Every structure is written in structure tokens, then in C-alpha cells.
């Protein structure tokens, strides 16, 4: 794909974001364009998708993501999402999207009070979304790293029921065979939830880092299929809107 056709990603940058460059690198490896957007910017520019990256925005003061979500750029992200734009939050980005109300629930302190930095296995629970359509469907879980102290997903009972009924749970922590078990749950997340989408399936968040898993030299390339799912979904959208025009 030539640069003029490549999908354009905005990677948000807050004070103490630390995976912004990882996201830029991963997307460029996958042939997409990526640019950083400073949190004080009030517009995103001409982009096809937004990634809210990992890190420790504002030093996790008050609650993870609580301050970042009031940054001016988040109003632009909210408008972008309202218009159907694809938004993915990774790790601290997931926490920010939950704090902003763009995704339901909250991320709280890990059950064992420890920071977990390790590879985990993920079962994809819904393949019919722009974030998951390209993930392998042979029952083999994908392996992606996590690095967080506050990744325990919580939502009240009625929200969890709705997430299940509407198939908004995208990824669950599982063992190497793909079984969703208590011992495969690194942080105490309810229903082993590692990532979810909103009810329109254009906004998603996950604690694991696909951005750190796109090159074999880093131990796993399984993160590719999440990002390439987004790129494919955007290509389909572009083809469809070109056909309609």
C-alpha cells in the first residue's frame, strides 16, 4: 500500500504516556501512518483511527486516567467516537476511556496488589468486530504482554450482563489451551475480562499491549492481528464510502 493510501492513526500523547512511540512504531511496521497528537490539541486532524496509548498519565494521580480524560483532546476523541470513528485504548488508554465514559466499567488495583509484567494468553470472545475480525479462529489463544498494577476490570452486575448479552467482551484471560480459568486471571478481572468494546463496536479498550507484540524479536507477534483487524476494517470502510460516492 502506498503512503497516500495508508490508514492514518492518531496516537494521543499525555504527560507520562510511555507507549506512544511503541504504538507509532508498531503501526508503521504494519504499513499504516501514525502521528502523535498532544493532549492539549483540540482537534485530531485528518485521521482514520485513534489510539489512546499506555503509560501513567499524570502519574496516575487521583485514579488512573481520571485527569487525562479532561484533557482538551478528549473532547475531540469523544466527537470522533460519536461519529463512528475507531478508537482503541491500550492499558492506561483503556483506563482513560473508562474514566471518560466512552467504555463501561472501571479498572481497579490488581487483586494481589502486585504490578504484573508478563506474557498472557487471550481468548477472543467475539470475532465480528473491527478490532478482532483478523485474529486467528482456530481456538489457539493469542499471547500478548501485560504491564499494569491496576488492570482488574470491574462493572456492576447489570453492566456485566449487558456486556455478555451484547457480546461486548472482546478478550478474556485464558490458559495456553484457551480455557478461561481462575488461575489464568492475572489481576482479578470479573469474568476474566481483558478487553471490551462499546455497544456500537467502534470504541474498544484492553489492558494487554498489542503494540509491544508486533515483531518476533520481542517474543510474540500476536499483537499484529488486533492492529491489522483495525486497518482492514478501515480499508473496508474506505472502499465502501468510495463506492457510495
Amino acid at each position, binding site marked *: 500500500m502506498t503512503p497516500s493510501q495508508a490508514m492514518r492513526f492518531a496516537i494521543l500523547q499525555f504527560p507520562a504516556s510511555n507507549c506512544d512511540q511503541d504504538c507509532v512504531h508498531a503501526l508503521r511496521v504494519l504499513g499504516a501512518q501514525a502521528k502523535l497528537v498532544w493532549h492539549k490539541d483540540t482537534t485530531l486532524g485528518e485521521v482514520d483511527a485513534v489510539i489512546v496509548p499506555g503509560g501513567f498519565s499524570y502519574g496516575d494521580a487521583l485514579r488512573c486516567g481520571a485527569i487525562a480524560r479532561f484533557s482538551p483532546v478528549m473532547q475531540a476523541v469523544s466527537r470522533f467516537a460519536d461519529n463512528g470513528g475507531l478508537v482503541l485504548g491500550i492499558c492506561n488508554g483503556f483506563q482513560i476511556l473508562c474514566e471518560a*465514559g466512552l467504555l463501561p466499567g472501571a479498572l481497579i*488495583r490488581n*487483586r494481589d496488589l502486585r504490578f504484573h509484567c508478563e506474557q498472557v494468553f487471550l481468548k477472543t470472545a467475539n470475532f465480528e468486530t473491527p478490532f478482532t475480525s483478523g485474529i486467528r479462529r482456530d481456538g489457539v489463544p493469542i499471547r500478548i504482554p501485560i504491564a499494569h498494577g491496576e488492570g482488574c476490570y470491574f462493572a*456492576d452486575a447489570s453492566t456485566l450482563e449487558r456486556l455478555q448479552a451484547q457480546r461486548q467482551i472482546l478478550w478474556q484471560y485464558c490458559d495456553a489451551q484457551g480455557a478461561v480459568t481462575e488461575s489464568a486471571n492475572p489481576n482479578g478481572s470479573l469474568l476474566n475480562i481483558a478487553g471490551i468494546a462499546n455497544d456500537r463496536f467502534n470504541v474498544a479498550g484492553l489492558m494487554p499491549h498489542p503494540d509491544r507484540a508486533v515483531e518476533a524479536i520481542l517474543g510474540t507477534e500476536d499483537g499484529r492481528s488486533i492492529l491489522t483487524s483495525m486497518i482492514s476494517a478501515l480499508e473496508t470502510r474506505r472502499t465502501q464510502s468510495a463506492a457510495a460516492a
Partner: protein
Amino acid sequence: MLPEICFTSIEKLSHSIPSPGLPGFVSAAMKAKLVITPKKAVLDPQGKTVANALEHMGYAGVTGVRMGKYIEIDLAPGTSAADADKALNEAAVRFLTNPVIEDYRLEIVE
């Protein structure tokens, strides 16, 4: 939808608490005290660990510990308690607490 506020409006929120503006008017400094606790349904591993430690130390009769946060906010002298209460309850719901996981108690004291 995100509410239409950002940093500047958070700053304005504190400025919106009216002061009497009377020359020479002096009154006691006021404080707002905000106690934030995790909701009952929310896992509180810190509280559980502290409860276990108390038990091991021999403090009998402790049946549970919930660990939360305490925020003390200084208010300009002469601030109306009613106005401060209204503004800070709003700030508590929008920003200072996450209603998905936390409950809070706000107290305005002189």
C-alpha cells in the same frame, strides 16, 4: 458524551465558589473534607490485607477493613457553605470520585 469541561473549567469550578468580597471582612478558614470509600461490591485487596494483619497482630473483634481516600480542600474565607457544598458535590461526582467503584461523604467544616 464527555461533559463540556476541561482543565480550565476545573479551575473555574473552584473560582465559582463565591467569596463575600467585603473589605476588612475576616472569617475563619473553611475546609471541605471528602472521604472516599470503595463500594461494597468492589474488591478491596488492600483493606483485606490490612484486616488480616490486624488479626495476626492480635487485635480481636475487627470484622472488616475498607481502604479509601481522604481529600481535604481549603476554601477561601467567607465562602458560603451551601455554595461550596453544591459545587464540591458536583466535582465529586464528575471528577474526584468514580461513581462506578466509589462512594463518598462530603463535609464542609469551619
